[in-house]
């Protein structure tokens, strides 16, 4: 008997107002559905919050709360403490989630606090590599040489001058039980990682690479292909850490970075600029060497 595909089973309903082809919507749908009905989600401000809760409606079929940009992890900590007090912590999954800006920049302090205090929470960072909701401003997780509205390309600029913040390593440095990176291009892997993360006690961290057709300037049908190429070129390594130790990496048949870059408007200038291209190649090379990604 074939698998039944029933949208009513998704804990993330249709009718949300994400752009066509939104990678974050795919990942959020998977995370909520895998976590199950007994889940409380604390959401940071960002695209995900805005497009899922067009007042007075909600796309969530689980308990969901939004407070501010910077405090998703702090709100989740409070929820977790309340669940613990009520003796329900073992039956309820508490998830905090936000975009890359709400996690790596604005919510960094409260995220670190949550990880340090040892709350039993899964933090999911949907990494679309800029502040997409407000109009593609660069964030701490914007990759090197990416064209954004606050790092525009011109005679004196090749886009974002700074490399991507090592957010996963920062989370790992807190010596938490589980930390991993995932991608919307590998959905079974993402599901497995969410399930695995929720099976651990204590703070867990997941960083999911989610293309944004609007901000990355690509066709809406290419979301999955681009996320896949990010992994296969070594620019977005999929790794898993357990108590600070690297336990697995997804091995790849390395592809040239141009294949990833050429599909996106935000990197169009890089292909015409050998020096910028070499910078991006260096990033991929460093990742491949560091994690031993090459098959």
């Amino acid at each position, binding site marked *: 008997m074939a698998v039944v595909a029933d949208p009513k089973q998704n804990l993330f309903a249709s*009718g*949300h107002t994400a752009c066509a082809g939104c990678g974050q919507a795919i990942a959020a749908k998977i995370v909520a559905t895998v976590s199950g009905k007994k889940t409380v989600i604390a959401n940071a401000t960002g695209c995900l919050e805005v497009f899922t809760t067009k007042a007075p409606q909600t796309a969530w*079929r689980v308990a969901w709360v939004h407070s501010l940009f910077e405090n998703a992890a702090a709100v989740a900590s409070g929820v977790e403490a309340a669940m613990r007090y009520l003796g329900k912590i073992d039956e309820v999954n508490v998830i905090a989630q936000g975009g890359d800006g709400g996690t790596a920049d604005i919510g960094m302090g409260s995220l670190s606090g949550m990880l340090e205090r040892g709350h039993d929470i899964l933090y999911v960072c949907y990494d679309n590599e800029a502040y997409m909701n407000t109009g593609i401003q660069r964030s701490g997780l914007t990759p090197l040489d990416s064209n954004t509205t606050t790092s525009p390309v011109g005679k004196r600029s090749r886009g974002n001058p700074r490399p991507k913040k090592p957010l996963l390593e920062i989370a790992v440095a807190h010596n938490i039980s589980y930390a991993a990176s995932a991608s*919307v291009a590998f959905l079974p892997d993402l599901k497995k990682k969410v399930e695995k993360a929720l099976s651990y006690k204590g703070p867990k961290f997941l960083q999911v690479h989610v293309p944004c057709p609007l901000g990355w300037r690509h066709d*809406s049908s290419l979301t999955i292909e681009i996320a896949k190429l990010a992994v296969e070129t070594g620019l977005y390594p999929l790794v898993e850490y357990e108590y600070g130790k690297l336990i697995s990496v997804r091995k790849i048949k390395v592809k040239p970075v141009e294949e990833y870059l050429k599909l996106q408007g935000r990197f169009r200038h890089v292909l015409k600029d050998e020096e910028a291209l070499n910078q991006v190649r260096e990033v991929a090379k460093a990742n491949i060497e560091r994690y031993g990604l090459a098959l």
Partner: protein
Amino acid sequence: MYPIGLLVGRPGSSMDNKTGSWRSDKKPKFLQKDCIACNMCFEVCPEGCISGNGKNTYIADYDYCKGCGLCAYVCPKKDIEMIDEGEEL
């Protein structure tokens, strides 16, 4: 004491928004010929508006489909085609 924030008591009430009206160019046509029920289209659909039960039964809910084309792109059997909005299914 009144709640300070907005409380929404209807889970999944976003279903009230028929986002299918956003489609401007293409829409997916499920050919239902070579489908192997791999569930890929269902999994990748950002709207979560594809349903099916077994081979050659998958279909999108055009009330919500925004026509992004991801289902057609990932279909391993090329059994989903993007056709013009005006064309008949």
